[in-house]
């Protein structure tokens, strides 16, 4: 099998689960020497890119948060997520076996090669949008990481164990803020409800399953998030209930991030994030 980036190699992992023609047929642009490695590489990129993109979005708040204490809190979460992303990208590069560092993967892939869920690439919006997005992610993240602490890949298990402690704290913070905003003032309630209405559709993607998920779940390296949905619903239903917020009905369900089909927001975000590194390829910083 050749390490062929043109998409012609047979190691692609097309998404064949849904009747969504737009997503079907997407292939990994990086074939590696073995199917298992390729699948693990894909899976690690998904985990890493979620954190890199979300961490980056949160870092945009620095210096602009509603109060000093929150500047510090949001920076904390951003730092944790970017740190996790770096560790996961390093592991991904090792698994890929082509010598790509975490920075090479972070700064020199195009949007179409990113594997984050669309939820995390959306613009921050107001503080309510940021908090609701964070809570929806954190509630999912804790469940995923709990499973990954038992990964058959020892490095991934170690990363997950550390990240789980961080994620539990993130969840504590975002859940409390969901309550404060949902059950605060009329204005904060309206903003939080609007945020929930706008973001809810993007949560479906967190639980979609394809061949990559099934493969890593089967060999124990990763987990299939579909089975986590009930536990996730328990947490989010409880907290939104305490916050007097109403969960919208399921309807429109955007998807595609896991195979590189993103919203237009990601390209713009990466243009900002990657511009300097790309202006000086090969330089050390």
């Amino acid at each position, binding site marked *: 099998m050749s390490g062929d980036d043109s998409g012609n190699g047979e190691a692609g992992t097309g998404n064949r689960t849904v009747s969504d023609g737009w997503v079907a047929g997407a292939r990994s642009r990086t074939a590696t020497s073995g199917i298992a490695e390729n699948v693990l590489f894909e899976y690690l990129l998904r985990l890493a890119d979620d954190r890199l993109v979300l961490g980056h979005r949160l870092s945009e708040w620095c210096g602009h948060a509603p*109060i*000093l*204490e929150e500047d*510090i*809190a949001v920076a*904390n979460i951003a730092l944790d997520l970017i740190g996790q992303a770096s560790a996961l990208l390093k592991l991904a590069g090792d698994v890929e076996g082509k010598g790509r560092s975490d920075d090479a993967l972070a700064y020199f892939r195009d949007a179409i090669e990113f594997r984050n869920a669309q939820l995390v690439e959306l613009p921050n919006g107001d503080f309510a949008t940021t908090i609701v997005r964070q809570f929806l992610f954190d509630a999912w993240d804790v469940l995923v990481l709990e499973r990954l602490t038992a990964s058959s890949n020892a490095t991934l298990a170690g990363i997950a164990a550390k990240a789980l402690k961080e994620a539990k*704290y993130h969840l*504590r*913070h975002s859940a*409390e803020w969901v309550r*404060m905003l949902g059950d605060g*003032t009329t204005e904060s309630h309206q903003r939080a409800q609007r945020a929930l209405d706008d973001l809810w559709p993007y949560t479906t993607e967190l639980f979609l399953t394809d061949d990559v998920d099934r493969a890593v779940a089967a060999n124990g390296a990763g987990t299939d998030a579909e089975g986590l949905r009930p536990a996730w619903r328990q947490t989010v239903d409880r907290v939104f209930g305490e916050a007097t917020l109403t969960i919208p009905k399921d309807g429109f369900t955007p998807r595609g991030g896991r195979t590189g089909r993103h919203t237009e927001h990601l390209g713009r975000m990466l243009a900002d994030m990657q511009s300097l590194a790309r202006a000086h390829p090969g330089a050390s910083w």
Partner: protein
Amino acid sequence: MTDESALSTAAPGGGSIETQWDLWEVFTQEGAGAPHEHAGSVHATTAEHAMQNARDVYARRGKVVSLWVVPTASIVASAPSEAGPLFDPGNDKAYRHPQFYKTPRGVRGL
């Protein structure tokens, strides 16, 4: 000086005075068995909120194993003007200090 004294900390709820939330004092313990020491203050609303803020501001460098947060308004402090009557009599009562007592040498457990 009276200008500043008229404008004290947070007024409750929204209203026309913009608030930066109530003031809380933070105490950190840096290891099991160590005393809790005053680290500084944070602004927060509920106790849970204060705990999180205190952790982010004073415990993010990881040397802390326990945190106390107390509303500043709950702290009762001695006034400097009473320091004499409150503390000096204790200073000159040597019998409260172990060094006052002469004990036979070589006796253990004292």
